[in-house]
Each structure stands twice: as C-alpha cells, then as structure tokens.
C-alpha cells in the first residue's frame, strides 16, 4: 500500500511510507488485527477487538485466499460496478482488495458507532505495529524520500476538500474554513 504522505517542511521533500504485502507469506494468524486494535484503544492497549482493527485479513483457508488489507479512504457510496479477480487460479471475491470503508460491507467501521476507520500508519510509533507483529514478513515496511511535487500536493488537497464537501456540504465547509482563518 502507499501510505500517508507527509511533506517535510520547506525543502520540498516528502516521506513516502509504504507497507509491502506479500500474500504468499501470510498464514492468516490475524496478529496484525490484534495489535492494531489494541494500539488504537483508548487508553492505548487497554483493550483489543479485531473488529476495530484498521487492517483486515480477508481469508478463506480452503480456497487458499489470504489478503491483508489496510483501511483506506471513507467512501460515501459503494462502487457502481465491482470486480472479481482470478490470480493463480484463485478467484477473489468482489471488494477483496479494496481499502475503502464503504456502505457495502462491515469492514473498516467501528462496530458500535459505524464510524469509518482508517489506517494512520500508527502515528507516533517507530514502525507500523502490524508490520512489527507480523513475524513471518507478510507485511514489511519501507520509507523513502521523494521530491515533492507541488502539483500532486495540490491535487491531494483538492481531493480532500471535495470529500469533505461531499460529506458535510459546501456551505458548512466554507463556514468552517472561514472560522479557522479567523483564528490564525
């Protein structure tokens, strides 16, 4: 997966955090789900519940399907069309590879409130904890620096604003921005 993009101050460099997933190495143990949900409990580690995890292992042992998926963006609506993949003779269900928290499925939602969950790359930790707890290296972590392109940044910003406008309505968003600018 391509992770959260952070722009380091001024020098136009950005850090790209990538979690590489090797589905061949996954043994389906769900340790990644356990530690992710424990880390995000409040207070930290005070409980755990894989249903709250921001990584989910889509597994079907008899069909030899093991796909760890990290929660990505929230989607207001489900996709109009869906895909089924066949790889190495194995047919993957619709949505198997999708990272969205979306109305079509229970994945990546808080079980009680239904609020969307999103992987934050374990903010504040040295390395993502799902990676650390995946001792068989189905998940590995890579960090690299890239030249930041203004263009891309701009795009990201716009996509972000658009989704907020979708969610809350343009007027509310404008009001919020106005309020924030006053504070500055």
């Amino acid at each position, binding site marked *: 997966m391509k992770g959260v993009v952070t722009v380091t101050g001024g020098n136009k460099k950005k850090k790209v955090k990538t979690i590489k997933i090797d589905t061949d190495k996954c*043994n*389906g*143990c*769900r*340790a990644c789900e*356990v*530690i992710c949900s*424990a880390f995000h*409990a409040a*207070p*930290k*580690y*005070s*409980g*755990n*519940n*894989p*249903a*709250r995890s921001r990584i989910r292992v889509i597994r*079907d*042992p*008899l*069909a*030899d399907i*093991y796909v760890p998926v990290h929660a990505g963006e929230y989607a207001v609506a489900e996709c109009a069309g869906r895909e089924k993949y066949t790889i190495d003779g194995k047919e993957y269900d619709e949505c198997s590879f999708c990272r969205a928290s979306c109305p079509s499925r229970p994945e990546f939602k808080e*079980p009680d409130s239904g609020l969307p969950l999103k992987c934050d790359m374990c903010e504040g930790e040295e390395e993502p904890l799902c990676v650390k*707890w*995946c*001792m*068989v290296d189905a998940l590995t972590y890579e960090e690299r620096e890239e030249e930041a392109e203004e263009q891309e940044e701009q795009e990201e910003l716009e996509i972000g604003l658009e989704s907020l406008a979708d969610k809350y309505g343009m007027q509310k968003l404008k009001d919020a921005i106005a309020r924030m600018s006053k504070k500055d």
Partner: protein
Amino acid sequence: MRYAETGFNLEVDLTRGNIERVATDPGDTELYLGGLGTNAKILWDRVPPEVEPFSPDNLLIFAAGLLCGTPATGCNRTIVSTISPQTRLMAFSMMGGFWAPELKYAGYDKVILRGKSPDLVYLWINNDQVEIRDASHLQGKGAIETSELIRQELKEPKAQVAAIGLAGENRVYFASIEQSKSSASRGGIGAVMGDKGLKAIAVRGTKDVNIAQPVEFLELCNEVLEYIKFREENPIPGVMPILAGLGSPQEMKVHDEKWHTENFMWGNSRVRKKDFWNEEIAKEWTDTMENARRRLISCFNCPMECGATISLPGLPTYMMKCFTKLTYAMAAMSDLDFGLRIAQRATEYGVDGFSTPQVMAFALELYENGVLSDDDMPGMPSDTEGRFYWLLDKIVRREGIGDVLANGTYWAAKEIGNGAEAYAHNNIKKHEQLPLKLSMLNPIYFLMYATGEKINITQIEGQFPQAPYPKREQREEFVKDWFQVPDEKFKQYFLDWELRGEKSIPYYPTVEMTCDIVDWQERMHYIDDALGMCAGLSSFPLKPPYHIHNYPKFISSGAGIDMDEAKLTQAAKRYRTLVRAVNIRRGMRRKDDKPPENHWKKRFPELEKELLDGYYKFKGWNNDGVPTKESLHELGLDYVSGDFIKRGILTDNGGAPSKETSAENEKK
C-alpha cells in the same frame, strides 16, 4: 469491570431449547483461573458420579482460557470438558485455531451445554443474539463441510465454527470436534456432542476484551515475541529437529521423519522398523508432502505456522497439524501419500488421529490371528489400505463389526472376547496411546504415564529434556540460559544425569527428584489449560517463551488479579486436585495409575512402587491416590473432602477408603 475474561457464561439447555447469559463469580477466577480450572469446578458441582456420559445431565463445556482474546501471542485454546464415554472419567481436550478468541469477542467465557436436543441442531452465537437452529440438512455432513455450509447460510464468513462429523453424530467413542486446522480429539468428546444432538457451534463477536494494566501487559507480550525470535534463530542443539524449536511438533514443515518412523511402532503398536528411513523414502515422502501442502498456517495470533492446508488431487482441501501426518501411514504399514489421503476422510468424519488408526490396526491384527473371522468382516477388501478405508467407514457408521470397534480397543476387546484383550495392549485408563515401546524404564516417564490425567503423554511432558546429554560440557551449555526452571535445583538434576552408570535411568533421577520434575512439567500444562495458552509456546517445548516466572505477571496485568509464583502454583494445584477428585469420585484409584503393561521391556516393580508412593505423598494423596483431607483443606477444597467422607471414599479421620469402586463396574 472484568479484565481478560468477560464475566459471562452461556448456559444452554438443549432439551428445552433454553438459553441464558449468566454472570460468573470473580472469586472463582481467583481460585481456579479459568478454562480447565473453572470447568473442573463446574463439573464437580454439577455432574455427580452417577451421571452417565450419554445422560442429558452430563455437561459439555466449551471454555475460552482466561487470557484468550488478549494480545498474548498463541493464547487461543478452547478447552472442552465433559465426562468421556470411553474412559468414563473427566475429559478435557483442547483445540487451537480461532474459536476461543471469537467467543470472548462475542462476550462470553464459556458455553455450558446440558440436556439433549430431540433433533439435530446447531448453536449460533452472534454477540448478544444466540439461537438454536435446525441442522437436519447437515446430518451426515463432514465436519469441515459443515463449517463451510454454516458460514454460507449465515452469510458470515468471519464466523468460527466448531463441528462434529458423522463419527460424533454416531457417538463413536473417539469422535473429535473439528475447527479450522485444530480439533479437540481425545476422550471422545465429539460423541458427547453428538449425543446431545448438537452438530456445531458457530460464533462471531465484535466486542472488546479489556486489559487491566495495558502498558505492562503489552511489554510482556513484546518480550515474548522477542524471545520467540531468539529461539527461532537459536534452535536447541543436541536434540532431534522437532524438539529443537517452538510450537506444536512441526510435522508440516519437517520432512526428516527418521526419528518417528524408526522409533515409533508400526501396525497395532507392534513392529519397529529400525532401518526404515533411507534416501529413496526421504525423497518420495518429501515430494508427497511438498505437493500436497498448499500453505503453512497458524492459529489465532501466533506466528508459528504449525498447521497446513493439504490439497491432494481428487480430494477436497483439508487442514492438518502434528503427528496425524504419520499415524495412519504407520498403523497401516503404508506410506505418506496413503496417510494424507485417509486423513482427509477421517477429518471430515471427525475422529481422533491417535486412537482411530490404532483401533483399525487392532481389528486387522485380530483378523490375522483368527480372533475375528471373515464372517465378522463381510466384504472387506484384501489389501491393507483398502481395509483401512473399509474399517473407517464401518466404524463411523457403526455398522457390523464397526459398531463394536467404535467403542475403542478396550471396550471392543471385552465385547469380542476370545482372547482379544491381549491385543488391546496400548491403553492407559481405556484410552489408546502413542505407539511407543521402549527398553529401559524411565522413572520420569513412568510417573507421567501413570498419573497424567489427560491420559496423553504429550499433555504432561515437555519442560525437562527427554534424555540426558552424553557429555557434561553439553549439559553445562544447556543449563546456561535455562531460566525457565522454577528452582535452580532442576539444573543440578540435569547436570548430573548420565547416559550410563550410577546416575542413569532407572534409578536416577531419584524418586524425590522425579517427583519434582514431573510435578513441574504437569503444572505448566495445567496453567496453560486454564489460561488458554498453546502448549507449543509454553509447557511442551524446551525453553519456551511462557514460564512460571512471567505467567504471574501476565495474569496480574492482564486479568487484574494479584498473582505471584506461589499463588499461581497453589491455584494450579487446586484445580489439578479437583480434576483428580472428579475422577476419584467416578471410581479411579491407584490400580488405574499405570502405563501400558508392555511400554518398557525392563520393568522394576519395587522402584515403580516407590515412585508412585513418593509421588502420591508429594501430591498430598493417600496410598490409594485419593487426595487427603488435610491436603484438600490446605487448598480450600473442604467441600471435596466432605463429599468424599459422605461417600465413604475417605473416612472422617482422613484415613483409608472403606471399599473400592471401579470405573469399569459402573458401566451398565
């Protein structure tokens, strides 16, 4: 708030179709921890010895261990307890996989089943919603097949399902309960499930499990992971590969089967093939395994990958672990390909991979020796492999001779008569054992075989090396980082243990040392079974990541129960004694505490008597193996001695029993 445990059990009355959610007493957790410990308490309280295994009053308890569902690596065991139809004693088989944590996330520590459903049903636990559902369409279906069908009809791919196959439905005395790659196999608990008319329990949970001291607990978890890494990189030198690392015996990974095939017995635990393993066989079996094995798989929250999905051409995929890889192959004097193929059918039928092949080899031995005749085996094929399939089908359907064999070698031999009893030679307490026959009596193993109440050697051995190292330097090396010992004296025991001479078996370790060693090994298994920990990361391998020094911290910070080594040792002793008490009340006595007659060629009756006397005393049991009034009092088990006195098992002054009862005589 309750920590680590949920504080609730599900009580299900299958006769009336009644389901209740019942709060449990936190005081019981302090005394008996959870899992096996609290199961033993419930069986003592609610299943008096008059209750037959197939009575509606027998309970079938599925328990998640105390720490299941927490982030503690490898803590995923479901402990299933009931009264066994085969041994007629308490059975407490466990299974790994994914079921126990899911039960915790659904909000329960145990499911306690009583009564009998008139029609075949399954239980569906979906958080707070629990229902008994019709399973008539699942009748006769395989165990794995059933799990898949249930997941599909519930539209809940994440539900974890524990199910029985045809063997359980037909009350075969060695029927298992299957779940994921794991199964609860020993003692015939699948038969009790079938007798209750329960085909499966499906569970799905999305609630939290709480931790009392989160930061401390996580630190302990991380230390365990670090140590697992260390042990993976540093296998123990000087022992065979399957004993060098962690996990359940890594039968799915390890191809070198020289040790098993040449040291374990073939057929009906008779023939030793000393030079069996050669290059050609090694190559053939390696190819078979590599082609069949689709992927190595783990249980919940564990990196060890002790199991595998097995896909053979023309057969549905199934999951396997451990020694079942070889039990069928060796019992039928065949090869690995046959072993893996028949294991597929056996897994769907849901039968124990240790007992089943032995029962079939036993039947063929009877046939070859004229005890069973062609009349008993109408239509049986002429080749051994064909015969195994034929027998398996007869047994799980309880047809013809299969109906007799379905009760296991002990009961079958009794029923067949005509000298058949001599062929049922590998049992302890009526239960088939690993096919091992050795030369010189080993005092440690003698006591473990004789007194291990799980009646399976792998469920009591583990912490102390199986044999001495030849050289003192090697032993010194071994004890250097052996911090898991509860006391430094164990290092000395091992350092002085020689292959030959004065300090070798059978007289060394001495009786006193042997008691210490056996007690330590057993204690660790009992702790695992209460916490829900996999023995493969704790009581079974040498130098494991979980041990008597870090367990109290796991319990304190995880469950919020103030714990130290002494308190934990005492708790384990308490419920271990309670398991014994349940069995004593059902007629078990000293006469039942013995290994298979022919397990060792060289026996030492005097020494064996001293060992048993010494161990009973050490455990606080009288000479007949009954816990004494004083030792029961010390453990807070006065209610047990009260009952014993009432029943004449102990006299008021705590003395010897008035008359002997026997588990055998209790059978109608």
